[in-house]
Structure formats: structure tokens, C-alpha cells
């Protein structure tokens, strides 16, 4: 038995003067209810699991993008002090490939997730779900993936097929 196994088997609890011997490792995790988990869980999966209610179109998202995103990502998402998000002209297999949401990103759900989770950089988490849907729609429209009036919501977003969806090979994971 290794030292670690021995320590674990003995169930040492370090802290204070206590060195309790029990059959297992200490169980100090506090059970939480599904309702409490919901407050933490903001993950959005490619199949749409985790998407909140709400909706938006590119037409609604354009003004928001201009006001809140363009100062770093450039007009129309063409790039600035932060990444270019749209407007690629050179293909991925060319000499000077241009990676944008439209040419590179495999899942549309990631656009919503990244926007709601982290953007805008100076006020992360400040967008409402409707705003995040609208700006997502705008970015998909700017990349010529959806029409300007196409409504993006929890049902329609996972169905948007990104051009590079099948462009990835998994190396160290199944």
C-alpha cells in the first residue's frame, strides 16, 4: 500500500487538533439542491442544453454591437484591438488563412456562450439574454450564416449549422 493509499484508507483529517480516524476520506462537501445548482450552471452545450429563454435578430443586434463591441472588435466585427469576428476573405487551406466565427467556429452555441459569459470585456455579464441572442444573431448574420431577420432563440440556435462544423480532428480525447 502506498503512503497515499494508507493515508486515504486511514481517513486522516488534517486541521486543528483533530486527526480523526474513520474508514473513508472526510466528506465535507455540502449537498446542494438542483435549484441552487441552477444559479451556478451557465454552460451551453452544442445541442442547446443550457440555453435560456429569450430571442433576438441581427437587426436588433446591430445597434448593440456598434455601441458595445465595435470599439474593440472593429466596425462590423472586422477586427480592432481584439479579434476579428467576421469578414474573412481567405480560406482556411490557403496560404494566409483567416479564422473568424464564420470560417472557423464549429458551433453557433459557442458564440452565444462566449458573449453572455465574458463580453463585453469592460462589463462582463451585463447583457440580458435577449441582448446576447440579438448580438449572436448579428455576428452570425455578419458572417453570412443567417438572414437579418432570422430569429435566434434556444430552439433555433443549435440548429444553425456552422460551415466548419466537421473541420476538426480530436487528438487526445475520443
Amino acid at each position, binding site marked *: 500500500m502506498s503512503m*497515499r493509499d494508507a*493515508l*486515504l484508507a486511514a481517513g*486522516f*483529517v*488534517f*486541521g486543528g487538533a483533530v486527526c480523526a480516524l474513520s474508514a473513508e*476520506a*472526510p*466528506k*465535507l*462537501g*455540502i*449537498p*446542494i*439542491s*438542483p435549484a*441552487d*445548482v441552477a444559479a*451556478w*450552471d*451557465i*454552460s*451551453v*452545450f*452544442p445541442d442547446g442544453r443550457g440555453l435560456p429563454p429569450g430571442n433576438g435578430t441581427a437587426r436588433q443586434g446591430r445597434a448593440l454591437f456598434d455601441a458595445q463591441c465595435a*470599439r*474593440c472588435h472593429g466596425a462590423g466585427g472586422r477586427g*480592432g*484591438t*481584439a479579434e476579428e469576428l467576421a469578414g474573412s476573405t481567405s*480560406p*482556411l*487551406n490557403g496560404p494566409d*488563412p483567416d*479564422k473568424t*466565427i464564420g470560417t*472557423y*467556429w*464549429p*458551433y453557433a*452555441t*459557442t458564440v452565444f*456562450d*462566449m458573449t453572455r*459569459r*465574458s463580453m463585453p*470585456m*469592460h462589463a*462582463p*455579464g451585463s447583457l440580458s439574454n435577449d441582448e446576447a441572442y440579438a448580438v449572436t444573431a448579428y455576428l452570425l448574420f455578419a458572417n453570412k450564416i443567417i438572414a437579418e431577420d432570422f430569429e435566434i432563440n434556444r430552439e433555433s440556435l443549435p440548429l444553425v449549422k456552422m460551415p466548419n462544423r466537421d*473541420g*476538426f*480532428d*480530436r*487528438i*487526445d*480525447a*475520443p
Partner: protein
Amino acid sequence: MRETFSTDDLQPAAGGGLLHRRVLLKAGLILASAGAAQPALAAAGKKPAVESDLAHPSWTREPGQPFTNYGLPSKHEAAVMRSVGANHDVPGNGVSWTPLESLEGILTPAGLHFERHHNGVPAIDPAQHRLVIHGLVKQPLMFTVESLLRYPMTSHLIFVECGGNSNAGWHQEPIQRPVGSFHGLVSCSEWTGVPLSILLDEAGLDPKALWAVAEGADAMLMNVSIPVEKLMKDCIVALYQNGERIRPENGYPLRLIAPGWEGVLNVKWLRRIQLTDQPVMARNETAKYTELLPSGRSRMFTFVVDAKSLLTSPSCGQSLSGPSVYELKGLAWSGRGRIAMVEVSADGGASWTRAQLQDPVLPRCFTRFRAAWKWDGQPAVLKSRATDETGYVQPERAALVAERGRHGYFHYNAIVSWGVDAEGKVSHVYA
């Protein structure tokens, strides 16, 4: 007294003046110095230009400073610092590099550990920080930091390397920067914490849980997916770095440590682990940390850090003070296990000899290597090449570029070449 060289020792072990590694045990080696044309003072035994009473300096004749509660480096070492590359619109977005050229041994001081932040260092109050484990588990659990401190702990002496480290290597022209500001998004520490398997067992894994999404409590809420198999095998929820609580910029109070896997998986400020049946396809495993190949297809989930080595001395920007016998020294590491061998070349890779590996040689940890080189004053190209215990050999740059193209950005691990000119100046070259 140490032995000095015999004529036998100066017989080359490989082209360009490389000597057998036994020479290292003998006296007389000198080191390249940083900056332009500084004479190798100590080695040459010369006196400094300004004469003072070296036998009775002032600090032996007056009481020294009293105690300090937390020590800092000497003010004379103030130039040894991380160099920072940040977005000027978002000052907390960018990196800082470990000054590899200024450090010895294998451990990186915590204050010099490289940083990659997406939106700054969060000011976390540990009393208000929680780790939530949920998803495909029998019982979702929440842990306080204080409770995690009471679990059995384990330690790993390991490197953490950003997947984007050394990315200037893909550039068309060799970048001229100190080795740390080019390859310094890698650092090595002792990380101590709770084996994640204990916490996952406590929550009770559902057999369908094949992946987990780990999330940090920074302003990016940085998240990434990681296979459960790895979490159960050797990941820890680290609380300590080099014996003290983790520094804020390195993940205080909790950091996921995934030994040997690329930096982004070692989620700082860890606050949530969600067990799932599939990866979440976060931005940092799709748009970033994937590698575009010339075919237009991309490599995804390139978790393992392949073997790599580089010479820290001499290295780019340093200079040699004239023909002499020099110590070559550097670092090697592999995410697959131990470094088995490091070879060095002084003739651009035409011939190689083995460097001395300095103990300890640990899996997924920096390994320090040294070699002896007699420089005759002619232009030379120095290289090092690592082989790990799986037999993986660090590739030449031309081979890596032939396989991956130049637009993959991440996971650049090619052999690093330093050119030495007739004046002894060292620069980065592709050779």
C-alpha cells in the same frame, strides 16, 4: 580542489567543439553573459574597475537590516522580472513571460511564474469562494476553501506550459528576444492539493460522466472541457504552490492542476466542475487551443504537451566573451513523462552529443541539463534536442512546419537554434 581540464578532456565529443559531459565536473567553465560585451568577471578572476576595500565592505562593519515578515529578492536583482505583453484596451488581457534566461535549477519562483489572463486577476475573498461539483453525479456538492484544506493532500513537482508558448516560432523570420520572452510561457512549481478523485468519489460519478467542464471565477468565467479519465487519474485541486498558498495571479485560492496537459486545462480560480457526457465546446477548445493544418482541417483536444528543450545559456541576446570553454545549460520537459536524454549540437545539428541531466529527473517536471563546449571563435549554431521516456524525439523546426504548416499557433515544440557570430553575439536563427 576540483580537477582542471586535461588535454584529453578537450577532445571533441561532437562537431563544433562539444566536449564530453564529464568535463562539467571539472573547473574552468565560463558562462555566456547577458547584454553586450560584458567581460566574464568571476571566471576571468579580474578585479572590478572601481577599487574599494573588498576585504572589509561596509556591510561587515555595521548591523544589518532587521527581520522581515515576507522576504523579497535583493534590490540588485530588480531586473529579473516577468515581461508583460497585454492588450492596451484591456490591460488584464494578455500574458507575462517567465525570464528563463535569468533562472537556474528547475523551480520557478512563484512571483516569476508565467501568467495568461483573459480579463485580469480576480480579487477573490476565499471566505466567499466555493467549488461546486454537479452534473452527472449522485449528489451535487459545494465545498468551501476551508473544508478543502482539511482533506488529504498530494504534491506534484511539475511544469505548466501554455499551449500558446513559443508561438513566435511559427513566424517566417526568427524573432529576436530573450529566451524567456519567447519561450517563457512555461514554469515549474510544486503544486499541492486534494486529489480530484476523492472529491468526485464523494459526489458519486455517474457511469455516463465521460467529460467535465471546469470553470474559473475570473471576469471571463473561463471554462474548458476535460476528460473524466484524466481527472480521476492524476488531477488535483491545488491550494499550495511552492509550499505557500497559491498566488492570486496563479489561481488563488483553488487551481485545477492537470499534470502534463496544456496550461488552459489547469483552470485558475476553480469554482465549478460539471460532469457531462460530452465536451461543452467552449470558445477555448474550439476557436482557440485548436491547431489549423495546411489542409484546412484542425487538430482539437491536443492536451498533452510534447517534449521540448532549449538552451537558456547561451541564448538569444547574450554574448560570449571570447574563445574559451563554456558551459551550455538549458531546460527540458515532456508532458508524457520523464526526459530520457537531451543531446546538444554546436554545428547546427550535423553532430550531437549527450548533455548531463541534473538530478532530480522527474516525470512532467523541468529537467536541467548541462554540457561543455569549447568555442574556437568561429560562427556556430547551438541546438538542444530532448527525447522523453516514451521515445518521442523533439522535432527539427523544418519537420514540424512540414507536418503542421505555420498557422496552427499552438503547441510549437521544435528544436531551438541559437547562432553565435564571430564576435560572440548570440541570436535566434532557423537552421
